[in-house]
């Protein structure tokens, strides 16, 4: 009798492990819900290095420079002519893909520079829209180039690259966007 009672007590003291999975599941679900795998997206740029007084910036021929000016009122000046943000994309594409055909546009894609100049009072939103249009122009050019190489689009081409630095599409159509110092607002 005594032996039996002792045995029973011992068996009852065991922690049931069947609910362990449920507890772990609950914790798992909590962390699944709270985890944010948000990726920061944005328009990438490389700033020019701090100007060196001894070496002046390399001269760029006027025809190779596409000047975009946005003033404080949000008006766009494209190559000294009043324009709008919506027209920038086509203008950049014509400029870069010109290959010396039209004397108003660039000599070659490698020489083509897009310069964006703002005013100190220009709304940031408008600046981003402008920059976005310029980059979209380049993305469209890259897409066309990637398609001619047998890829669906540029993103696919880039994903297929083994060496990210040996990007033929970008080497052929280099994106050269320059940010000019703004005029002091008045």
């Amino acid at each position, binding site marked *: 009798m005594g032996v039996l009672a002792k045995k029973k007590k011992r068996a009852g003291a065991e922690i049931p492990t069947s609910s362990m999975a449920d507890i772990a599941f609950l914790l798992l679900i909590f962390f*699944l819900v709270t985890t944010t795998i948000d990726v*920061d997206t*944005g328009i*990438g740029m*490389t700033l020019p290095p*701090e100007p060196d007084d001894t070496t002046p910036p390399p001269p760029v021929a006027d025809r190779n420079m596409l000047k975009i000016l946005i003033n404080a009122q949000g008006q766009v000046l494209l190559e000294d002519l009043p324009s709008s943000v919506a027209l920038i994309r086509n203008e950049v594409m014509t400029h870069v893909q010109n290959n010396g055909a039209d004397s108003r546009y660039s000599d070659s894609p490698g020489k083509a520079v897009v310069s964006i100049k703002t005013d100190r*009072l220009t709304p940031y939103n408008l600046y981003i829209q402008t920059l976005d249009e310029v980059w*979209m122009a380049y993305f469209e050019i890259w897409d066309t180039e990637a398609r001619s190489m047998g890829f669906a689009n540029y993103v696919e081409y880039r994903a297929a690259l083994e060496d990210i630095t040996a990007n033929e599409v970008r080497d052929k159509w280099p994106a050269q966007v320059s940010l000019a110092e703004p005029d002091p607002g008045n």
Partner: protein
Amino acid sequence: MAHFTKKSKAKPEISTASLPDIIFMLLIFFMVTTVLREQEVQVRTILPQAEALTKIEQKRYVAYLWTGPEKLRGNAIGDTKVQIDDAVIEDLTNIRSIMYRKLTEQPRLIVSLRVDEESEMGIVTDVQGELRKAGTLRISYSSRRDISNM
């Protein structure tokens, strides 16, 4: 023969004893990857919308810099301020030393500029000027995907 079939019937049960272990493994994975550290942003940053977006895959390269009107008590907003990490930067020339220090720790640093869409270019240019002096030339204008065009 009959004995044989009995045995095979008893076998197909999958042991659930290792189930907690599997779940714990998953749990530990998510616990490790979860970032609970949420910096308190003291300036308002409604990001502009754009199309030509690129993702910054490597989070460890990124340093954030917020610019926007300062959030005041009771939904009011103040002057445009710059915030790095947890501190609002009053003197913009301090950006240089902060960013330079970050650059020495992470040479492939990308500065993500989270600028409020209603800001003016003046402060953005000043910040960029400081970044150029610090040598942190890789920047990203943080933007949201333009939903209207999708």
